[in-house]
């Protein structure tokens, strides 16, 4: 019972972005994709989300091929929270969350669709804002609307592409806490592309380090965060310590080099 990514290759034109990525995420767990800019973590979420078609390789969920599904069937199984969303039109929060129901209804949403929308709005504490136009929301609120949309989509797998990059510390923590909670309470499998190693170490069950389109290390955060490996991947010396039961990564800054 798991999400399996099997030897996925993908390239933008001639530029190979994913060079045979294989990985397994147990159902109901929270997995972090980590790595420097351009390492392929965003692209990998987009391949699993059905946004990009891989050149080769497969994605399976509970043993069934995911990439061969029709778009709608795929969208009922796997939800996706994009990096950011500029909306050039005035749309209420409720209408924006309703978009998550797109793969579920025909011409118009039914009662069940609105119920899911209201649940998602409640889960993210957006009740006060539900009639507000999303162009009036702060960055953190807008990001919560995107998460609510994916929750309303009611899928078994949730993919998040750096959902916390635009958020302040409090909303970063709240978002990650919420996703972790959903994996626990709803048995949803979550895969997140994220920059912050310490947040991944604190909230995720599994950490996968990508570099140049290949997986360098994978395992629990404590297993994956290896000083030598991180130094190699990021080109920066780091120290890894355990603190309050979680791994913490700190960059080593050489004073002399800075002063020169």
């Amino acid at each position, binding site marked *: 019972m798991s999400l399996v990514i099997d030897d996925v290759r993908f390239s933008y034109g001639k530029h190979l972005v994913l060079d045979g990525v294989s990985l397994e995420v147990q159902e109901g767990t929270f997995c972090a994709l980590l790595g420097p800019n351009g390492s392929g973590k965003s692209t990998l979420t987009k391949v699993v989300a*059905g946004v990009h078609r891989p050149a080769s390789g497969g994605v399976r969920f509970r043993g069934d091929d995911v990439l061969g599904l029709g778009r709608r069937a795929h969208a009922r199984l796997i939800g996706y929270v*994009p990096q950011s969303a500029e909306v*050039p039109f005035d749309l209420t929060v409720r*209408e924006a969350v309703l978009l998550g129901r*797109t793969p579920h209804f025909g*011409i118009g949403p039914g009662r069940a669709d609105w*119920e899911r929308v209201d*649940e998602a709005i*409640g889960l993210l504490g957006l009740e006060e804002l539900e009639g507000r*136009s999303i162009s009036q929301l702060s960055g953190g609120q807008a990001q919560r609307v995107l998460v609510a949309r994916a929750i309303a989509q009611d899928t078994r797998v949730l993919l998040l592409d750096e959902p916390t990059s635009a958020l302040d510390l409090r909303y970063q923590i709240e978002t990650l806490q919420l996703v972790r909670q959903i994996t626990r309470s709803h048995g949803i499998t979550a895969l997140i592309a994220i920059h912050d190693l310490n947040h991944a170490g604190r909230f995720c069950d599994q950490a996968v380090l990508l570099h140049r389109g290949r997986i360098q290390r994978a395992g629990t955060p404590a297993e994956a965060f290896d000083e030598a490996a991180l130094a190699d991947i990021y080109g920066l010396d780091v120290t890894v310590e355990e603190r309050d039961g979680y791994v913490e990564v700190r960059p080593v800054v050489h004073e002399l080099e800075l002063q020169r």
Partner: protein
Amino acid sequence: MTTSLAERDAGTPPTGRGPAPARDDRPRRAGAWRPVALAAGAVVSVLAIVVAVTIGTAGVTLADVWGAILLATFGGTLQPDFSQAYSIVTELRLPRILLAFGAGAALSVAGAIMQGLLRNPLVSPFTLGVSPAAAFGAALAITLGGATTLPAWVIILSALGMALAVSAFVLSLASAKKMAVATLLLLGIAVTQLFEALTSALQFAANENTLQAIVRWTFGSVNDANWGDVQIVWIVLLLSLPLVLWFAKDLNAIAFAGDDAAKSLGVNVGPLRVGLIVVSVLLASVVVSFCGVIGFVGLVGPHIARLVIGADHRYLLPASGLAGGLLLLLADTVGRTVMAPAVIPVGIVVAFIGAPIFINLILTRKTALR
């Protein structure tokens, strides 16, 4: 309402997905006014059309309009004392009014489709170069065929053919770049510049009569309306509407969530974009070919509709049709009355009416356009 307040207090950070709270009637009521507003808009439109028929230099009463419609629909004998009013209604006013309304509706629906698809409230159905291409097609026919001897349908076909051919060219170029929005917009600008230059070149070389005919065509008017034009414009409009409404929720996903998220929401973005652009281009091309270039309504109509009914395309598309139809009907009615008996082309009047409305819309928006 008291129950929903209580629930809000009870479940501040709810985590379980248990049964939905007992406010199950509320969700449906939230948008129920929209179909009502659309129906009201349709009634207003019919009334506006009937009233517009009575307006003009030759006096025609509402009773005359009703009588003429009954007579034309169900047949009967035409009384001699009614024949003048009858022919004014059925041969002059009704065709031009229905053409004006249909053309405005078609352009406005086409504009709403384009704005949604390209995720840009500033584009119009002419963004891909439809109108300069059609104008060049017409100018070419007029130059080659002679300004006076050429039958109208040759000019129309030439304009339509050129508009569709150029749009197909733009779309095929854009599909090589995966139909990216910026590519489409830039190609549209390039094509617009090119065909405006081509038309200018024809005008530069043309003699007095030809030049006048070309310029007159580009004004955009419904002065030469006949029932054939009305039929074609309305048939294209009425066939397009159900088609685009069927895909309205997918259009919502593209417009509000963007290409990548729309794909992850189960929308076949590429084919849908091509298909809907073809519909939009077809609507715009047909109108331009029959009426000449009527700018603005395709840009303003959707904005007015969005202000009234919201951005959801399931309601926005029909509402845009009504708004655009009413706007062009108003412009044409003003155009044929303010300087009567002279008739100002509707393409000119609509800019005079539309520009202040549009400026007002921009300035009174709650949020700034980004």
